């Protein structure tokens, strides 16, 4: 049995130590907000926060997660006291998502970016946000990041 702290709650999980966090979340805990896109750490659909850092959960085995503080898309709003975060509100204001499948990971990556750079430049955005969106919502992602950065 492994104990995990996710979105402020303790969970007990029985799984092989090499099981990636992504599948623990999705299959052991039925937390399906975090998505599977590639399994290779390339697309970012599986991005969560581990100890405050944006991390691709398909690349983190269960055995590495003891004492880690994990936040998923489901827990993002509760971190800001419930309701929508600035990033989520900007995402709606700019009407960013199309199919929406990549957006959990995208929002987690962007949320971490804005913790690092309060008002990121386009160069910083380009370097840090490498999540893939096949629908091509990038122009609106960029606008929503700037919008969120401007929000009080």
């Amino acid at each position: 049995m492994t104990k995990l702290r996710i979105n402020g709650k303790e969970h007990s999980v029985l799984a092989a130590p090499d099981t990636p966090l992504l599948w623990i979340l999705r299959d052991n805990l039925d937390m399906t907000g975090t998505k599977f896109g590639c399994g290779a750490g390339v697309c970012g659909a599986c991005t969560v926060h581990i100890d405050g850092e944006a991390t691709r959960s398909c690349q983190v085995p269960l055995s590495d997660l003891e004492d880690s503080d994990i936040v998923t898309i489901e827990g993002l709003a509760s971190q800001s006291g419930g309701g929508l975060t600035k990033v989520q509100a900007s995402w709606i204001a700019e009407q960013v998502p199309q199919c929406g499948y990549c957006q959990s990971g995208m929002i987690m990556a962007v949320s971490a970016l804005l913790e690092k750079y309060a008002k990121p430049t386009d160069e910083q955005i380009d370097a840090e946000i490498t999540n893939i969106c096949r629908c091509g919502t990038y122009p609106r992602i960029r606008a929503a990041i700037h919008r969120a950065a401007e929000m009080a």
Partner: protein
Amino acid sequence: MGGRLELTRRGFVASAVATLVVSMRLTQPGSAQAAPDESGGGLLNPFISVDKQGNVRLVAPAFDMGQGTHTSLAMILCDELGANWEQVTVVGPEVDPAFVVPGINEQATHGSFMVRNWHDPLRKAAAAAREMLVQAAATRWNVDPASCEVSAGLITSAGNSLGFGDLIEDASRLPVPENPQVRNTKVLVGTPTKRIDIPSKVNGSAKFGIDVRLPGMVYAAIRQAPVYGSKLESVSSPAESSDNIKIVELPSAVIAIADTFWKAKSAVEGFSVVFATSDNDALTSSDITAQRTRQLDEGTVARPIVSGDPDAALAATSDGVSGNLVTATYTTPFLAHMTMEPMNCTVWMKDGKCEIWVPTQGLSATVTAAAAATGLSKDNIVVHPTTPGGGFGRKYEADFVVQAIAAAKATDRPVQLIWTREEDIQHDFYRPAMTGRLTAALSPEGDMNAFIMRKVGPSIVEHMIGSALIDGSDPIAWLGFGSQTKTAPGELQQYAVENVAAEFVFQPTHVPIGFWRSVGAGENGFFIESFVDELAHSAHIDPYEFRRRLLRESPRGRAVLDKAASEAGWGNPLPTGHFHGIAFTDVVGSLVAQVAEVSMNDGTPTVHRMVVAVDCGTAINPDSVIAQMQGAVVMGLSSALNEQVEIADGRCMPSNFYDYHVHGLADTPRIDVHIIDSSEPLGGVGEAGVPAVAPALANAIFAASGRRIRSLPIMANL
């Protein structure tokens, strides 16, 4: 079917293909009657029901995979009905003959047909429902229905006012008017409206096919034969396993079932699997391309489109004096879809029924495939369509549904089959690799007198109906060549050219092919608009001017071209080293022009800006139109610059996003979209923006470097 194919008729492809589709997927006529329900509300028609509190439930008869159809179709219903948008909820369609898409005769979402084919029928249904509510009010107040006003869910007449909720029970007992008065009310329609599906897509609550969870559900992973069509010979699993793994063998694949996907995937990767050798084991992309090149001159040529006498016009230039003959050959590669949600399907075989949860674009296709795979009648197939995480044509297929059924038959539990990204890219139904040889006659003044395009490649219609060709050609290969508008002056999109021929040489391939956002129009845009550019340069005429002349009989086309050119600043000074390229396309009934602004750095193009002008008749939800153009440009740039599925050893070589590069945020330039409302009949939007991208970009690269790109992707052909 005989005679000349008339691609100038709107919906030709729809009707030709639909005729064939109908013969395979018979749908039954009939629709639900209006009726009250047990809780004081009622159904007015299959699209509209209202409860006692006045909440309106609308069925948007399309699968929303991000193109915004649920919102757009609901806006149409809501406006015509006169409902209060704040009290509206929208759901997608279940299996029901009422939701068979007019013109394509199946329940599906493809071809950019949804809004343009449903608009009038939904207006009519909503008008009928409105009149029933009005009649109920008029009867209650003993007034003339003509005196009643309807707005925001309220019906008023003189001093009387009632909400839909108060009237629904009476209204739903009334006969449905057969010829209601359609008002074409525009409250939401034509204004940027926030999409109803977006809030759930920013907090992780939106459920895709892969998110379906059922009690006792188990998971399946698959390994398919790498070489297409090769058969499974043997499977053996390691002797010891602490996990309970079930193995299911298919003709060309093996499936492992376990209680988590990670276990199933780990298991199937650990199997020793042998697939039979086949004749295709050594085939490469080069072989496939070389064969198409040979077939340009050796294959059987069908001429599905011809107008005037192009051969005579070309012959007339053979003296080199009365004009010039220009010819060029282009090729495009296989392209993968790379939907962010990989293929998946959940199936439960239970109580003599087959219950399916699937992210699909093809509901009728799924039911048909499931009936064939199970031997059950269609009444015993229950399908729950989920939101697809990207479709682009891939999720119209049912191959992964059939596999999931095979897995489900091996257990009494629900089974969710998920493809890894490797399986997804290597077992796609790719945009077919095609070759096009274009020939044109230019007068000494630079007028295009004749245009012949010979395409060589496989047939997508074969993939749909099993028989390869209609009159020797694949009509799908001519999307974007002929027009789906009613106002095209001739046979070549909106261009004024009298002597035109489209020629098709069928060259099948063992590589699976299918529908990739804009289908045949995708490569046609690159072939035609690159070649038109070559003609312009050959005649020493500005490429924008050259197209203006070609659009002389299409004021609508000119307006779109002019808008893109003026917004881009065509002809005005650009920053040093920046150059423009332009393209014009007529796709899915919409007219699109694009200008690319590019610079070359060390022989590599940088795209600075894309300007898009689009005329889709009327933009129902203008913000969705902009979003679709932005997304299409990104997909178009990505595929034009970098994408190709290389075949070697008879199989797909790339295996994931790291060796099949899909555009990211840093690759994406500024994209400006301008919508022109021409009030012409509605055109499609989802695919309309893709075909002009590659040629606009290639034409800009030519302007910048003198290098003419005739083969995609650009980065592999510089």
